[in-house]
């Protein structure tokens, strides 16, 4: 009953929400973001500027900013100094330090560090920490829903070394374990019908992929909506995008936009709202998830007939 144990007051304990989550699933990324967000609140409440804080820890305003966004590991000595400056009491200081220590524990994906450009490593970490993943895909089946064969054929479009291809497929499989793990996130995916017709190699592979989608669509935490050709144009006048939500009240949704050689992470309220609004208009315009099973069956029949 964590959400309701304080009917008369705002939650007194800033990290109350985190305690309800099994440690493994909260993940170091979201912890770091949460600790960073709290740190910013305390600094602002104490009326301390970023530059003043930076001076104290012999650093720059930009580094303090990165710490507060959770994009920087915490040094214990820096934290101790900052919390003292912000007038945080001893009990809370201890709590901050405990969480910061947990936040510094590396995630499973760091074993694949050599394969991952740093912008994608951040994504994998955030995906692991998310409670709701909303994703719109134009050309491919979303990574979390791909069969090994499908993933392999997509990876081969860009990579040729067989060993590296297999490790990349492994990584994708690891990411997919998320969907059936304890306390799994909710995945709400919109896939353009074109992506489902565009078989990466052969019809058999495409049929297997459609079969997997039909199975995953049955999971209670997976919701698929297909932007069918029959419904004509839809409001998503942009490319693929993903909106991540985290199980901490203070953390904003983050929009992930990938391009050829990098990625953008939007967390400014007005920019996130542009994408959230587009998402809302997209998924209220296309067929509801109840019809996705029959749509997938129809496409499977069409793909079978064509190959």
């Amino acid at each position, binding site marked *: 009953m964590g959400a309701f*144990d304080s009917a008369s007051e705002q939650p007194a304990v800033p990290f109350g929400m985190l305690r309800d989550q099994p440690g493994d699933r909260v993940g170091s990324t979201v912890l770091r973001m949460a600790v960073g967000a709290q740190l910013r609140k305390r600094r602002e409440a104490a009326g301390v500027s970023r530059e003043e804080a930076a001076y104290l820890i012999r650093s720059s305003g930009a580094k303090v900013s990165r710490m507060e966004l959770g994009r920087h590991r915490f040094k214990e000595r820096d934290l101790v100094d900052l919390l003292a400056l912000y007038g945080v009491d001893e009990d809370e200081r201890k709590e901050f330090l405990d969480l910061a220590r947990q936040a510094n524990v590396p995630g499973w994906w760091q074993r694949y560090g050599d394969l991952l450009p740093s912008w994608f490593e951040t994504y994998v970490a955030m995906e692991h920490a998310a409670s709701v993943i909303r994703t719109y895909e134009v050309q491919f089946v979303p990574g979390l829903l791909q069969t090994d064969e499908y993933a392999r054929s997509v990876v081969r479009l860009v990579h040729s070394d067989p060993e590296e291809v297999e490790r990349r497929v492994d990584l994708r499989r690891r990411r997919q374990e998320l969907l059936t793990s304890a306390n799994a996130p909710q995945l709400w995916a919109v896939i353009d019908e074109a992506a489902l017709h565009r078989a990466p190699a052969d019809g058999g592979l495409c049929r297997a992929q459609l079969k997997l989608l039909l199975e995953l669509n049955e999971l209670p935490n997976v919701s698929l*909506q297909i932007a069918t050709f029959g419904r004509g144009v839809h409001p998503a006048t942009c490319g693929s995008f993903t909106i991540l939500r985290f199980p901490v009240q203070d953390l904003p949704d983050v929009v992930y936009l990938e391009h050829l050689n990098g990625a953008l992470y939007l967390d400014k309220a007005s920019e996130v709202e542009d994408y959230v609004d587009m998402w809302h208009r997209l998924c209220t315009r296309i067929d509801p998830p109840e019809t996705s099973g029959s749509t997938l069956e129809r496409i499977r029949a069409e793909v079978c007939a064509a190959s």
Partner: protein
Amino acid sequence: MGDVATGVDRTVAHSARMWNYYQGGKDNYQVDRDIAEEMLAIYPGYGIKARTCRYYLFRTVRFLTVEEGVRQFLDVGTGLPTAENTHQVAQQFAPESRIVYVDNDPLVLAHARSLLTSSPEGTTCYVDADLRDPDRILGEARASLDFREPVALLLLGVLGHIAEYEEALGIVRRLVDGLPPGSYLVQCDGTTTDASYVKALAEYHDAIGVPYNPRSHEQIAAYFEGLELLEPGVVPIHQWRPEHGLVGVPAAVDESGGVGRTPLRPG
């Protein structure tokens, strides 16, 4: 810009999204937060009200599931998903529970369909219908629920969206009369017991997509006429079977409601 085809409008404050903001949710726009903050400045009790309403939903649904053995719920005016939604509460105590969510807002329905998904043992389904069309609501509910068994009808904070009280009363009558014998009505709405609350609603009446009208405690009690009221009757909702936790007595809110049971035999 508003989008006529989808019914999602980012330029006008929206009741369900504002309520989501008061509950501490993230499914709201800047325009919702702006109006919500202005209303909070007049009536600071919105945050407590939103949490207390959610806790009332939790206590009533748990009571019906655990104490009364109800396994079917018809939740009209679903709202945007939050931490403890009706099916999650019911299925937590009885996984086989079946829930029909009803709303007429496209944004609410899209969220409900994708995020309010059932345990494997039970079912959830979603009906696009207006509160002003009780026959359609009952017809759709019959398709998913077993009308030989009792159904709990939830009308939480929605009757205030009907401008005329007499019409709201008529809707309750028609819905309740259409339920199987031994069914339940769970209801609550904002009351005219606080002048600043009434003022906030009056001043922003036209600024919100679907305006809301508070009622007197007596008007709310009259929704239960002809039903057997379960203890403690129609009360300010923080007094409905309260649980005193570590934080002490729950804060008072300007919102009344109760739980009533329909006769076991019709007539």
